[in-house]
């Protein structure tokens, strides 16, 4: 049966809409996850991305983490230090600051609220 062209274009538009929505969700989630990972101990860019990929169960564009780390540092939530290695290039280690722990706790509460809200909606 031939497919209605307007249905096809609608479906493509919906797919694009969902892609954008998912991207926004991931962006919001990424900030939270970075703080979660750093709350467990200091880490450097490459290792941090490996941990995040496990959480997100997918590979992420690795470079995107650096502007985010810079922003979190600017907001005073994390800090960094360079560590000279015995072999290989120096690594920049990031760690969470007390303000970061506070923000993380608040973010956790809000995620839980959103989760409860969504559960309530799906059961009502």
């Amino acid at each position, binding site marked *: 049966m031939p497919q209605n062209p307007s249905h096809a274009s609608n479906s493509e538009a919906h797919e694009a809409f969902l892609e954008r929505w998912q991207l926004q969700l991931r962006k919001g989630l990424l900030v939270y996850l970075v703080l979660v990972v750093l709350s467990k101990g200091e880490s450097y860019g*490459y290792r941090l991305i490996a941990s995040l990929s496990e959480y997100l169960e997918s590979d992420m564009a690795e*470079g995107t983490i*650096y502007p985010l780390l810079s922003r979190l540092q600017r907001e005073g939530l994390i800090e960094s230090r360079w560590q000279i290695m015995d072999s290989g290039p*120096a690594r*920049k280690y990031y760690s969470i600051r007390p303000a970061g722990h506070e923000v993380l706790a608040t973010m956790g509460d809000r995620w839980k609220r959103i989760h409860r809200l969504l559960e309530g909606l799906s059961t009502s």
Partner: protein
Amino acid sequence: MTGSAPEFREQDAQQAWTQYFLQVDSLSSALTARQRRDIRLEITAHLLESYVLRSEESESERLRVAIERLGSPAEFVPGWVEDRLLHDAAPGSGVRSLLQLLKLNARRGATHLLASLALGFGYLLAFYFFFVAALKPVFPDNVGLISTGDGFTALGYIDTPEMVDLLGYWIMPLGFIISFSLIVFLDRMLQRFSRA
């Protein structure tokens, strides 16, 4: 701190590395040398770590995959640079940084452009008050808040036959206080505005 580029045996790999960092340098040119070096070092560390963990056979293939995973500099360096400017080029850190910050805000849309222009004008005004106050001892009769015979009043250097200096040497403390207060106020506004 070891952050120098590795030496590849394969020319393609060496070329790809050089090309990548030329792009990084070009995209981060608005930053200070130290800030640029910081970004370069972090990208170097990332790429090398990714490179040594790759199992592909040739150097160029391993580097290609490492670069592909990290992404093109155009995808993430501009955002990083923007943040470094906002973080390190904090108000009070020099005229060049201040101009970069104003320029950066101006590119963020019409509202930011107008606010940047207003802030830029404010800083010019602050510097003007400072220079008027500083030049008073050099040109005591011609610099100040001066009223001319035809009812015209101006702040600055005036040289006409009939004129009255309305503030005299009071222009010095007043000029410095106004200039300093304006800069403190504008710095705070710029900081708040940059984070918005």
